[in-house]
Protein backbone atom coordinates (compact mmCIF):
# COMPACT_ATOMS: atom_id res chain seq x y z
CA UNK A 1 0.00 0.00 0.00
CA UNK A 2 1.38 3.37 -0.98
CA UNK A 3 1.89 5.62 1.97
CA UNK A 4 2.06 9.33 1.92
CA UNK A 5 5.42 10.98 2.02
CA UNK A 6 7.21 8.33 0.06
CA UNK A 7 7.36 10.13 -3.19
CA UNK A 8 11.06 10.84 -3.02
CA UNK A 9 13.82 8.28 -3.16
CA UNK A 10 11.61 5.32 -3.84
CA UNK A 11 13.34 3.73 -6.77
CA UNK A 12 16.98 2.79 -6.91
CA UNK A 13 17.46 5.28 -9.71
CA UNK A 14 16.02 8.02 -7.57
CA UNK A 15 18.13 6.97 -4.67
CA UNK A 16 21.21 6.96 -6.79
CA UNK A 17 20.71 10.60 -7.62
CA UNK A 18 21.06 11.36 -3.94
CA UNK A 19 24.57 10.12 -3.88
CA UNK A 20 25.56 10.71 -7.43
CA UNK A 21 27.91 13.44 -6.36
CA UNK A 22 30.28 10.99 -4.78
CA UNK A 23 33.20 10.73 -7.10
CA UNK A 24 33.42 7.19 -8.26
CA UNK A 25 36.97 7.58 -9.38
CA UNK A 26 38.35 8.20 -5.92
CA UNK A 27 41.50 6.17 -5.40
CA UNK A 28 40.03 3.57 -3.13
CA UNK A 29 43.22 1.82 -2.27
CA UNK A 30 46.78 1.41 -3.15
CA UNK A 31 46.88 -1.39 -5.63
CA UNK A 32 48.81 -4.32 -4.36
CA UNK A 33 49.54 -7.05 -6.87
CA UNK A 34 48.25 -10.35 -5.61
CA UNK A 35 51.64 -11.86 -6.25
CA UNK A 36 53.05 -9.62 -3.56
CA UNK A 37 50.31 -10.47 -1.13
CA UNK A 38 50.77 -14.14 -1.69
CA UNK A 39 54.46 -13.76 -1.14
CA UNK A 40 54.06 -12.10 2.16
CA UNK A 41 55.21 -14.25 4.97
CA UNK A 42 52.71 -13.21 7.54
CA UNK A 43 53.63 -12.96 11.11
CA UNK A 44 51.07 -15.61 11.78
CA UNK A 45 53.52 -18.18 10.58
CA UNK A 46 55.49 -19.16 13.57
CA UNK A 47 58.87 -20.63 13.27
CA UNK A 48 60.26 -23.74 14.75
CA UNK A 49 63.22 -23.71 16.99
CA UNK A 50 65.88 -25.33 14.97
CA UNK A 51 68.58 -27.50 16.24
CA UNK A 52 71.87 -27.25 14.46
CA UNK A 53 72.43 -30.95 14.74
CA UNK A 54 69.18 -31.96 13.13
CA UNK A 55 68.20 -31.71 9.50
CA UNK A 56 64.49 -31.15 9.49
CA UNK A 57 61.90 -32.23 7.04
CA UNK A 58 61.23 -28.89 5.44
CA UNK A 59 57.61 -28.49 4.47
CA UNK A 60 56.58 -24.86 4.10
CA UNK A 61 53.19 -24.17 5.61
CA UNK A 62 52.61 -21.09 3.50
CA UNK A 63 50.52 -21.61 0.44
CA UNK A 64 51.23 -19.97 -2.83
CA UNK A 65 48.37 -19.37 -5.17
CA UNK A 66 46.66 -22.67 -4.73
CA UNK A 67 45.28 -24.12 -1.54
CA UNK A 68 46.37 -27.55 -2.62
CA UNK A 69 49.99 -27.64 -1.82
CA UNK A 70 52.66 -29.50 -3.54
CA UNK A 71 54.72 -30.39 -0.56
CA UNK A 72 56.13 -33.19 1.47
CA UNK A 73 57.20 -35.88 -0.83
CA UNK A 74 59.12 -38.89 0.23
CA UNK A 75 62.31 -37.24 -0.85
CA UNK A 76 61.64 -34.43 1.61
CA UNK A 77 61.82 -36.79 4.50
CA UNK A 78 65.16 -37.61 5.91
CA UNK A 79 65.18 -39.78 8.98
CA UNK A 80 67.62 -38.05 11.22
CA UNK A 81 69.50 -38.68 14.33
CA UNK A 82 69.15 -36.34 17.23
CA UNK A 83 72.32 -35.30 18.84
CA UNK A 84 73.24 -36.61 22.23
CA UNK A 85 72.76 -33.18 23.74
CA UNK A 86 69.28 -32.78 22.35
CA UNK A 87 66.75 -33.01 25.14
CA UNK A 88 63.37 -34.23 24.12
CA UNK A 89 60.18 -34.74 26.05
CA UNK A 90 57.38 -37.13 25.36
CA UNK A 91 54.09 -35.49 24.45
CA UNK A 92 51.57 -35.72 27.27
CA UNK A 93 48.86 -37.32 25.19
CA UNK A 94 50.25 -38.52 21.91
CA UNK A 95 53.03 -40.72 23.14
CA UNK A 96 51.50 -44.16 22.91
CA UNK A 97 53.64 -46.89 24.39
CA UNK A 98 52.32 -49.30 21.78
CA UNK A 99 53.02 -46.87 18.96
CA UNK A 100 55.48 -47.98 16.31
CA UNK A 101 56.91 -44.71 15.01
CA UNK A 102 58.24 -41.60 16.65
CA UNK A 103 57.80 -38.14 15.18
CA UNK A 104 59.83 -35.33 16.64
CA UNK A 105 58.68 -31.74 16.37
CA UNK A 106 60.97 -29.28 18.05
CA UNK A 107 61.85 -30.98 21.30
CA UNK A 108 58.59 -32.90 21.58
CA UNK A 109 58.38 -36.57 20.71
CA UNK A 110 55.13 -38.07 19.50
CA UNK A 111 54.86 -41.85 19.41
CA UNK A 112 52.02 -42.91 17.20
CA UNK A 113 50.67 -45.76 15.14
CA UNK A 114 51.89 -45.67 11.58
CA UNK A 115 48.84 -47.58 10.37
CA UNK A 116 46.45 -44.99 11.78
CA UNK A 117 48.50 -42.07 10.56
CA UNK A 118 48.96 -43.58 7.12
CA UNK A 119 45.29 -44.45 6.91
CA UNK A 120 44.40 -40.77 7.33
CA UNK A 121 46.59 -39.18 4.71
CA UNK A 122 48.27 -40.50 1.63
CA UNK A 123 50.92 -37.83 2.03
CA UNK A 124 51.79 -39.05 5.49
CA UNK A 125 51.61 -42.62 4.23
CA UNK A 126 54.29 -41.85 1.69
CA UNK A 127 56.36 -40.01 4.24
CA UNK A 128 56.22 -42.84 6.72
CA UNK A 129 56.53 -45.78 4.34
CA UNK A 130 58.92 -48.57 5.30
CA UNK A 131 61.30 -47.70 2.50
CA UNK A 132 61.52 -44.14 3.75
CA UNK A 133 62.15 -45.21 7.29
CA UNK A 134 64.89 -47.58 6.30
CA UNK A 135 67.95 -46.56 8.24
CA UNK A 136 66.12 -44.23 10.58
CA UNK A 137 67.53 -44.05 14.09
CA UNK A 138 65.66 -46.02 16.72
CA UNK A 139 66.62 -44.46 20.04
CA UNK A 140 63.59 -45.84 21.83
CA UNK A 141 62.97 -48.98 19.90
CA UNK A 142 61.09 -47.65 16.89
CA UNK A 143 62.01 -45.45 13.93
CA UNK A 144 62.29 -41.78 14.69
CA UNK A 145 61.77 -39.02 12.14
CA UNK A 146 61.87 -35.27 12.52
CA UNK A 147 59.16 -33.01 11.19
CA UNK A 148 59.60 -29.28 10.98
CA UNK A 149 56.30 -28.48 12.63
CA UNK A 150 55.35 -26.65 15.76
CA UNK A 151 54.57 -29.32 18.37
CA UNK A 152 51.28 -27.72 19.38
CA UNK A 153 50.14 -27.59 15.77
CA UNK A 154 51.11 -31.17 15.10
CA UNK A 155 49.28 -32.21 18.26
CA UNK A 156 46.14 -30.60 16.87
CA UNK A 157 46.53 -32.66 13.71
CA UNK A 158 46.98 -35.83 15.74
CA UNK A 159 43.97 -34.95 17.83
CA UNK A 160 41.94 -34.66 14.66
CA UNK A 161 43.25 -37.98 13.37
CA UNK A 162 42.73 -39.88 16.60
CA UNK A 163 39.44 -38.29 17.66
CA UNK A 164 36.31 -39.10 15.70
CA UNK A 165 34.09 -36.04 15.54
CA UNK A 166 36.82 -33.59 16.41
CA UNK A 167 35.92 -31.87 13.18
CA UNK A 168 32.24 -32.30 12.46
CA UNK A 169 32.60 -33.64 8.97
CA UNK A 170 29.43 -34.40 7.08
CA UNK A 171 28.68 -38.04 6.52
CA UNK A 172 30.82 -39.53 3.82
CA UNK A 173 33.74 -37.21 4.22
CA UNK A 174 36.84 -38.80 5.52
CA UNK A 175 40.10 -40.36 4.59
CA UNK A 176 40.64 -41.55 1.07
CA UNK A 177 41.23 -45.28 1.10
Amino acid at each position, binding site marked *: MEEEGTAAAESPADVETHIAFIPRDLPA*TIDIPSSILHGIESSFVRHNVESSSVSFVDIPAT*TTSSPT*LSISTVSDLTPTELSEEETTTHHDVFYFRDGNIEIVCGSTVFRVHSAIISFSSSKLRDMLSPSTLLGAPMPEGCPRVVFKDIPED*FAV*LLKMIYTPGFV*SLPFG*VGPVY
Partner: protein
Amino acid sequence: MTRFPARRGVPEFTIFAPLIQMTTKYGFHDVREHLVNDIKDAYPTKWEGFEAAGVLGEDVFGSPKPHPNSVLNLFLEQGIEFALPFAAYRAGLGGPSASALANNKPGTALPPTVLVSITHGMGVMRRMAVLAAHRIAYTGDLGVCPKRACILDASTNRIEQRMKALNDIFDVMVGRSEGDMLSPLSFGTLVCVNCTRRLEKVHLYFRKEFVWAELPNLLGRGSWEAV
Protein backbone atom coordinates in the same frame (compact mmCIF):
# COMPACT_ATOMS: atom_id res chain seq x y z
CA MET B 1 40.87 -35.49 26.49
CA THR B 2 37.54 -36.87 25.38
CA ARG B 3 37.67 -39.38 22.61
CA PHE B 4 34.13 -38.69 21.48
CA PRO B 5 33.46 -35.01 22.04
CA ALA B 6 30.13 -33.47 21.20
CA ARG B 7 29.90 -32.67 17.53
CA ARG B 8 30.32 -28.99 17.00
CA GLY B 9 30.61 -26.36 14.33
CA VAL B 10 33.57 -24.13 13.74
CA PRO B 11 36.41 -24.85 16.16
CA GLU B 12 37.80 -21.97 18.17
CA PHE B 13 40.51 -20.09 16.36
CA THR B 14 43.39 -21.54 18.36
CA ILE B 15 42.34 -24.91 16.95
CA PHE B 16 41.04 -23.75 13.57
CA ALA B 17 44.28 -22.02 12.55
CA PRO B 18 46.71 -24.91 13.12
CA LEU B 19 44.15 -27.38 11.86
CA ILE B 20 43.76 -25.65 8.51
CA GLN B 21 47.52 -25.22 8.23
CA MET B 22 48.23 -28.84 9.03
CA THR B 23 45.43 -30.25 6.88
CA THR B 24 46.67 -28.19 3.96
CA LYS B 25 50.21 -29.28 4.51
CA TYR B 26 49.52 -32.97 4.90
CA GLY B 27 46.85 -33.29 2.26
CA PHE B 28 43.65 -33.64 4.25
CA HIS B 29 41.81 -31.83 1.50
CA ASP B 30 38.32 -32.88 2.57
CA VAL B 31 38.86 -31.62 6.08
CA ARG B 32 40.33 -28.39 4.82
CA GLU B 33 37.43 -27.86 2.47
CA HIS B 34 35.01 -28.53 5.27
CA LEU B 35 36.73 -26.03 7.55
CA VAL B 36 36.64 -23.39 4.83
CA ASN B 37 32.98 -24.11 4.17
CA ASP B 38 32.25 -23.63 7.84
CA ILE B 39 33.29 -19.99 7.70
CA LYS B 40 31.67 -19.08 4.40
CA ASP B 41 28.54 -17.58 5.93
CA ALA B 42 30.57 -15.44 8.31
CA TYR B 43 32.69 -14.07 5.48
CA PRO B 44 30.06 -13.43 2.82
CA THR B 45 30.85 -12.42 -0.72
CA LYS B 46 27.40 -11.14 -1.62
CA TRP B 47 25.37 -8.37 -0.04
CA GLU B 48 22.41 -10.71 0.39
CA GLY B 49 24.63 -13.13 2.28
CA PHE B 50 25.89 -10.33 4.45
CA GLU B 51 22.38 -9.20 5.34
CA ALA B 52 21.26 -12.73 6.11
CA ALA B 53 24.29 -13.76 8.14
CA GLY B 54 23.68 -14.33 11.81
CA VAL B 55 27.34 -14.39 12.83
CA LEU B 56 29.91 -12.33 11.03
CA GLY B 57 33.67 -12.20 10.86
CA GLU B 58 35.84 -13.41 13.68
CA ASP B 59 32.77 -13.94 15.88
CA VAL B 60 32.29 -17.26 14.08
CA PHE B 61 35.23 -18.68 16.02
CA GLY B 62 33.44 -18.28 19.31
CA SER B 63 35.32 -17.57 22.47
CA PRO B 64 38.06 -16.54 22.88
CA LYS B 65 37.43 -14.28 19.92
CA PRO B 66 40.56 -13.92 17.81
CA HIS B 67 41.96 -10.57 16.80
CA PRO B 68 40.71 -9.73 13.29
CA ASN B 69 44.30 -9.16 12.20
CA SER B 70 45.18 -12.74 13.12
CA VAL B 71 42.28 -14.01 11.06
CA LEU B 72 43.27 -11.87 8.09
CA ASN B 73 46.86 -13.09 8.36
CA LEU B 74 45.70 -16.69 8.33
CA PHE B 75 43.47 -16.13 5.29
CA LEU B 76 46.29 -14.42 3.44
CA GLU B 77 48.68 -17.20 4.31
CA GLN B 78 46.25 -19.92 3.32
CA GLY B 79 45.00 -18.21 0.18
CA ILE B 80 41.37 -18.16 1.29
CA GLU B 81 40.57 -15.50 -1.27
CA PHE B 82 36.81 -15.24 -0.92
CA ALA B 83 37.10 -14.26 2.73
CA LEU B 84 39.79 -11.60 2.29
CA PRO B 85 37.64 -8.51 1.56
CA PHE B 86 35.41 -8.89 4.59
CA ALA B 87 38.30 -9.98 6.80
CA ALA B 88 40.21 -6.89 5.68
CA TYR B 89 37.22 -4.71 6.51
CA ARG B 90 36.96 -6.21 9.98
CA ALA B 91 40.66 -5.67 10.51
CA GLY B 92 40.32 -2.09 9.32
CA LEU B 93 37.51 -1.23 11.71
CA GLY B 94 39.94 -0.82 14.56
CA GLY B 95 41.82 1.88 12.68
CA PRO B 96 45.54 2.21 12.16
CA SER B 97 46.32 2.85 15.81
CA ALA B 98 44.54 -0.34 16.85
CA SER B 99 46.41 -2.27 14.21
CA ALA B 100 49.68 -0.83 15.40
CA LEU B 101 48.87 -1.59 19.01
CA ALA B 102 47.99 -5.12 18.03
CA ASN B 103 51.64 -5.65 17.29
CA ASN B 104 52.03 -6.47 20.93
CA LYS B 105 49.96 -9.61 20.48
CA PRO B 106 51.57 -12.54 18.69
CA GLY B 107 50.27 -13.11 15.20
CA THR B 108 48.40 -9.84 14.90
CA ALA B 109 50.94 -7.69 13.12
CA LEU B 110 49.79 -7.12 9.57
CA PRO B 111 52.37 -7.02 6.81
CA PRO B 112 53.18 -3.35 6.15
CA THR B 113 51.79 -3.30 2.61
CA VAL B 114 48.50 -4.80 3.80
CA LEU B 115 48.28 -2.39 6.72
CA VAL B 116 48.86 0.61 4.44
CA SER B 117 46.33 -0.58 1.90
CA ILE B 118 43.61 -1.22 4.47
CA THR B 119 44.24 2.00 6.35
CA HIS B 120 44.09 4.06 3.18
CA GLY B 121 41.02 2.23 1.87
CA MET B 122 39.11 2.64 5.11
CA GLY B 123 40.01 6.32 5.16
CA VAL B 124 38.55 6.77 1.69
CA MET B 125 35.38 4.95 2.70
CA ARG B 126 34.93 7.06 5.80
CA ARG B 127 35.36 10.26 3.81
CA MET B 128 32.77 9.00 1.36
CA ALA B 129 30.42 8.35 4.25
CA VAL B 130 30.77 11.92 5.50
CA LEU B 131 30.19 13.29 2.01
CA ALA B 132 27.11 11.13 1.64
CA ALA B 133 25.77 12.29 5.00
CA HIS B 134 26.21 15.91 3.99
CA ARG B 135 24.54 15.34 0.67
CA ILE B 136 21.59 13.46 2.14
CA ALA B 137 20.98 15.86 5.01
CA TYR B 138 21.62 19.28 3.56
CA THR B 139 21.06 19.44 -0.15
CA GLY B 140 17.33 19.06 -0.11
CA ASP B 141 17.27 15.51 -1.34
CA LEU B 142 15.11 14.47 1.54
CA GLY B 143 12.43 16.54 -0.12
CA VAL B 144 9.33 17.83 1.53
CA CYS B 145 7.07 15.65 3.55
CA PRO B 146 3.33 16.13 2.95
CA LYS B 147 2.65 15.30 6.58
CA ARG B 148 1.99 18.40 8.62
CA ALA B 149 3.25 16.66 11.74
CA CYS B 150 6.64 15.88 10.19
CA ILE B 151 9.45 18.33 10.71
CA LEU B 152 10.24 18.06 7.00
CA ASP B 153 6.86 19.44 5.95
CA ALA B 154 6.55 22.39 3.63
CA SER B 155 5.70 25.04 6.18
CA THR B 156 8.23 27.79 6.51
CA ASN B 157 7.60 28.71 10.09
CA ARG B 158 9.59 25.83 11.51
CA ILE B 159 12.92 26.42 9.86
CA GLU B 160 14.87 26.14 13.10
CA GLN B 161 13.30 22.85 14.04
CA ARG B 162 13.80 21.54 10.52
CA MET B 163 17.46 22.56 10.58
CA LYS B 164 17.91 20.89 13.95
CA ALA B 165 16.38 17.68 12.64
CA LEU B 166 18.64 17.74 9.61
CA ASN B 167 21.65 18.40 11.83
CA ASP B 168 20.67 15.43 13.94
CA ILE B 169 20.31 13.24 10.87
CA PHE B 170 23.73 14.38 9.71
CA ASP B 171 25.22 13.69 13.13
CA VAL B 172 23.78 10.18 13.19
CA MET B 173 25.30 9.39 9.80
CA VAL B 174 28.65 11.02 10.53
CA GLY B 175 28.80 9.18 13.84
CA ARG B 176 28.40 5.93 11.99
CA SER B 177 31.04 6.92 9.47
CA GLU B 178 33.55 6.53 12.27
CA GLY B 179 32.34 3.03 13.11
CA ASP B 180 30.93 0.07 11.25
CA MET B 181 29.65 1.65 8.03
CA LEU B 182 27.97 -1.56 6.89
CA SER B 183 25.46 -1.85 9.68
CA PRO B 184 22.06 -0.17 9.44
CA LEU B 185 21.32 3.10 11.16
CA SER B 186 18.54 4.00 13.51
CA PHE B 187 17.15 7.47 12.95
CA GLY B 188 14.74 7.17 15.84
CA THR B 189 11.94 9.68 15.76
CA LEU B 190 13.81 12.59 14.21
CA VAL B 191 11.37 12.63 11.32
CA CYS B 192 8.07 10.91 10.55
CA VAL B 193 7.85 7.20 9.87
CA ASN B 194 7.72 7.63 6.12
CA CYS B 195 10.69 9.96 6.03
CA THR B 196 12.61 7.60 8.29
CA ARG B 197 11.99 4.85 5.76
CA ARG B 198 13.25 7.07 2.98
CA LEU B 199 16.35 7.83 4.99
CA GLU B 200 16.93 4.16 5.66
CA LYS B 201 16.56 3.37 1.97
CA VAL B 202 19.07 5.99 0.97
CA HIS B 203 21.44 4.81 3.65
CA LEU B 204 20.96 1.19 2.60
CA TYR B 205 21.85 2.17 -0.94
CA PHE B 206 24.99 3.88 0.31
CA ARG B 207 26.02 0.89 2.42
CA LYS B 208 25.48 -1.54 -0.42
CA GLU B 209 26.81 0.38 -3.39
CA PHE B 210 29.54 2.48 -1.81
CA VAL B 211 30.81 0.49 1.14
CA TRP B 212 30.14 -3.17 0.38
CA ALA B 213 31.06 -2.81 -3.28
CA GLU B 214 34.40 -1.28 -2.32
CA LEU B 215 35.51 -3.97 0.16
CA PRO B 216 37.60 -5.95 -2.35
CA ASN B 217 39.55 -2.76 -3.01
CA LEU B 218 40.84 -2.79 0.54
CA LEU B 219 43.36 -5.38 -0.59
CA GLY B 220 43.61 -4.21 -4.17
CA ARG B 221 41.34 -6.92 -5.51
CA GLY B 222 39.24 -4.53 -7.58
CA SER B 223 35.79 -6.04 -7.41
CA TRP B 224 33.86 -8.93 -5.92
CA GLU B 225 33.92 -10.62 -9.29
CA ALA B 226 37.70 -10.56 -9.16
CA VAL B 227 37.83 -12.25 -5.76
